[in-house]
C-alpha cells in the first residue's frame, strides 16, 4: 500500500467493500421479503403526493444564454489563476496588473454588448 498506486488501491478496496455491502443487503432483502406486486405500489412515491405529468422535463431554451454566459466567465476566470501566481512577484508589478484589466475589459465589452442587445432581460 505505498508508491504512486497505493492511494488508489485503498480507494479501490473501499469501492469494492461498498459494492459488496449494497449487493449483500439487497440480495438478503430480496430473499427474505414477501413479494406481492400490484396497484399503487408501481406509482412513484413522492412524499405522499401523487406524481403529476411526465418524468421527462425540458428546460426552456432561454436558459441557454445564461448558461453560456456562465461558461464564458468560468472559462475566462481560469486565465486569472496563472496570472495570480506571478503578478505580485518582483519584476512584474503595475504593468501586469494593467494587462489583466485590459483582458477583463474585453470581457466587459462582450457583456455590455449582450446587455445592449437585450439578451440579459428575462422575456
Amino acid at each position, binding site marked *: 500500500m505505498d508508491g504512486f498506486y497505493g492511494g488508489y488501491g485503498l480507494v479501490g478496496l473501499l469501492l469494492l467493500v461498498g459494492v459488496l455491502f449494497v449487493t449483500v443487503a439487497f440480495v438478503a432483502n430480496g430473499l427474505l421479503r414477501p413479494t406481492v406486486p400490484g396497484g399503487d405500489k408501481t406509482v412513484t412515491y413522492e412524499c405522499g403526493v401523487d406524481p403529476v405529468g411526465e418524468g421527462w422535463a425540458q428546460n426552456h*431554451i432561454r436558459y441557454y444564454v445564461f448558461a453560456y454566459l456562465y461558461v*464564458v466567465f468560468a*472559462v*475566462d476566470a*481560469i*486565465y486569472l489563476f*496563472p496570472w495570480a501566481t506571478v503578478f505580485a512577484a518582483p519584476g512584474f508589478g503595475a504593468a501586469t496588473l494593467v494587462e489583466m484589466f485590459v483582458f477583463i475589459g474585453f470581457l466587459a465589452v462582450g457583456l455590455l454588448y449582450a446587455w445592449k442587445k437585450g439578451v440579459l432581460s428575462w422575456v
Partner: protein
Amino acid sequence: MPLLLPVLLAALLFSIGIYGVLARRNAILVLMAVELMLNAVNLNLVAFDVWLRDRLLAGQVFTLFVITIAAAEIGLGLAIILLVFRNRATAALDELRDLREQDLAPAGRLGESGTDGGTEPAVTS
C-alpha cells in the same frame, strides 16, 4: 509519475470520441463526442507536462487554451444546432440534404461530359 496510465486513458477517451463522431447521427451527440476527444487532448497535455517536468509549463498553458477553445466551440455549436432545429425541426445530420451534389438535367451542365464526377462522400444520399 508513471506515464502509461494517463496516456492510455487519453487514447481510450479519444477513440470513444472518434467512435461517437462516426456512429452518432444527432448533432448534439456528435458535439459531445468531440468534447471527449478534446478532453483526451487535455489529459495528454497535463500528463506529459508533469512527466517532462516542463519548466515553462507549456503543457498546462496549452491545456488552458484548449479548454477555452472547447468552450467557445460548444457555445457556437449549440447556437448553430439551435438555428438548424428552428429552421428544420430536426437535429439529425442525415436529414440535412438541401445542399448537396444534385443530379442535373443534361441541359444544366456545362456540356455533356463522359467523365464520371465520382461520388461525394457523406452528403450524397
